[in-house]
């Protein structure tokens, strides 16, 4: 266990492994996204009330669900950083924050675009939108803090701590906001168990899209983390070797 | 001073602080690596080095204020991380910033900072202030004190501290000649009493004690 952990901790190990993974991820993403998109845009039947706008869902829901997954990810990374002092975890956390912020922004945007035809307005103070917005604020808070602290060590620990505190808060926020009011789509609509309610021709492409977008998220995370690794390890031998070999 | 007596009593094994293979780099400049030294009861050690050689950094590392280092630090044989509270109970640190609140008077400042370590009576405090040459300043708000006077207030804290290890970062700055003498005597008294002192300063200490020196200039870069 410990060996495995320290091994996983080493940026070098991550760098090599990720270079093995990446190609597969690329393939998976391209297939899933292209299939999903084509299916969603061309073959999914019009919604009886929403018409073609239903198709936005195939972007919106995956993006939104990922942006929800982002904070827990950062919190876990934070715990690892504080407890096991693992450099890699912090690098991941550092890269996850801005990516997560972008996904959240896109979720908000697509949601807004969707809302325009549905609710006749780009924005409503509905529970899920609001909690999404607040999560966005939290993410930006972490990013701002990270950049405000000069020494990387302190920044790492500080942001780890903040993300943990934030993660503890997210459910409370979500709960309180829902309890505050709700007119958003209930989560049940598209959950797997009652797929009978809305036919498979609706949710199968959605699932495909979700997985595809997840691949995209992972890829972008890995890429920027690799960047970070090279940045921080620039003095270590193996990076120097890579650079030299790249120079040829 | 009673604390010296106590000190002697309890200094069964005289080895106090052990620094083992310390390594520290700050933004890509190695300050020191493989730094070993130890401090025994009765040691008065001056950390030397040119500006930016890492004195402050080293002192803060030893106190546990700065954790971005590699290596091991032992207090009486145990790793300080395993006995933080005991170690901190035996430690008195004065940094570049004196730790004196500007709004409070000298006495009020000491009342608090000492209370973190031991009970103290106002008479003790006034004695201490008198001994650092601040007789009659006990009730002056520290904002209205000169740089050196504020420095003296934090030195008075030393007199009252039960700590056995003193870590002082340039305590002589802004002290006038008299002040310097006072502090030098203080240091000697403390080590005589079985304490240990780690001090950085750029001026020549003249103390009636065999001064140990730790020079960081060789080590950096």
């Amino acid at each position: 266990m410990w060996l495995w952990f320290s091994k996983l901790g080493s940026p070098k190990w991550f760098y090599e492994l990720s270079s093995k993974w990446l190609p597969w991820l690329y393939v998976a993403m391209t297939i899933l996204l292209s299939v999903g998109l084509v299916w969603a845009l061309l073959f999914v039947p019009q919604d009886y009330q929403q018409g073609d706008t239903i198709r936005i869902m195939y972007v919106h829901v995956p993006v939104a669900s990922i942006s929800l997954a982002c904070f827990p990810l950062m919190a876990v990374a934070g715990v690892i950083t504080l407890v096991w002092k693992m450099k890699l975890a912090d690098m991941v956390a550092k890269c996850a924050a801005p990516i997560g912020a972008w996904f959240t922004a896109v979720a908000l945007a697509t949601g807004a675009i969707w809302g325009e035809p549905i609710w006749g307005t780009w924005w409503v103070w509905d529970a899920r939108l609001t909690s999404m917005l607040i999560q966005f604020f939290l993410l930006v808070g972490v990013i701002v803090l990270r950049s405000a602290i000069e020494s990387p060590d302190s920044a790492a620990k500080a942001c780890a701590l903040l993300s943990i505190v934030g993660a503890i808060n997210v459910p409370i926020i979500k709960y309180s906001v829902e309890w505050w009011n709700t007119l958003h789509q209930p989560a049940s609509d598209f959950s797997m168990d009652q797929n009978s309610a809305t036919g498979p021709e609706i949710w199968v492409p959605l699932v495909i899209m979700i997985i595809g977008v997840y691949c995209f998220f992972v890829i972008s995370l890995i890429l920027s983390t690799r960047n970070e690794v090279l940045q921080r390890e620039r003095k270590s031998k193996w990076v120097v070797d890579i650079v030299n070999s790249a120079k040829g | 001073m009673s604390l010296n007596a106590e000190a002697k009593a309890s200094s069964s094994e005289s080895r106090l602080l052990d620094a083992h293979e310390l390594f520290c780099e700050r933004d890509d400049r190695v300050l020191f690596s493989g730094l070993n030294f130890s401090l025994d009861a009765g040691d008065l050690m001056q950390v030397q080095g040119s500006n930016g050689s890492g004195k402050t950094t080293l002192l803060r590392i030893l106190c546990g204020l700065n954790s971005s280092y590699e290596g091991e630090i032992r207090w009486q044989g145990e790793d300080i991380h395993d006995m933080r509270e005991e170690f901190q109970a035996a430690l008195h640190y004065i940094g570049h910033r004196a730790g004196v609140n500007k709004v409070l008077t000298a006495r009020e400042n000491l009342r608090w900072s000492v209370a973190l370590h031991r009970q103290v009576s106002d008479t003790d405090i006034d004695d201490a202030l008198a001994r650092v040459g601040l007789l009659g300043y006990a009730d002056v708000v520290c904002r209205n004190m000169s740089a050196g006077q504020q420095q003296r207030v934090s030195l008075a804290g030393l007199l009252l501290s039960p700590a056995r290890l003193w870590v002082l970062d340039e305590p002589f700055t802004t002290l006038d000649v008299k002040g310097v003498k006072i502090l030098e005597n203080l240091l000697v008294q403390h080590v005589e009493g079985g304490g240990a002192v780690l001090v950085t300063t750029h001026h020549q200490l003249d103390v009636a004690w065999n001064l140990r020196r730790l020079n960081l200039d060789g080590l950096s870069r």
Partner: protein
Amino acid sequence: MSGKSPVKVSTFSAFRATLRRDLLIALKRRNDMLNPLMFFLIVVSLFPLGVSSDPAELTRIAAGTVWVAALLASMLSLDNLFRADYEDGSLEQLILSPQPLYFMVLAKNIAHWLISGLPVVIMSPLLAYMLYLPSESYWALVVTLLLGTPVLSLFGSIGVALTVGLGSRGLILAVIVLPLTVPVLIIGAKAVADVSLGLDVSMHYALLGAILAMAFTLAPFASAGALRISVN
């Protein structure tokens, strides 16, 4: 005398010393104690000026406005919580004290709340009146603020501890902390509003109480950790 010897002073008396010190400092800068209050007052009175002076209108926004103002007031008063200690080096003394930092931080938080939180709570009915809040909601307002403002102080102190080392001030703190305090605001404001609708709000109180309990036990740990990070 030696490292091995038992700590020379009980944690409690150190706790008391810290509490007394902070209260003393506040007392010395007596009119600083007015600031949170004045700020609260001013912000609240900005609304009749900025929004509208129509009583019916104000009644509707009263609860929310008062709560938001209280939120901002305690947020901004937080800035002084650790800053001065950090700049004059007292913070290092605190961290290096042989006492568990949790209690020291708690002492400072309590002092801060007594100085800046409590007056706001006491003042709130007056402002509620100025905004034509229906009188039956006064109690709800006071109670929710009484439960809520300590949470704000406790959460806030985490943010302060994280940012105490930074040159830039005030805003970054608010940006970090305000989102965390949303639940308190929502529940608090809703409770006040619901009361005036004649609904039962014991549920709201329970929620606030739960949050307070959690904050009370966890937040100081976080703050303590954050402080260690910041002095590093």
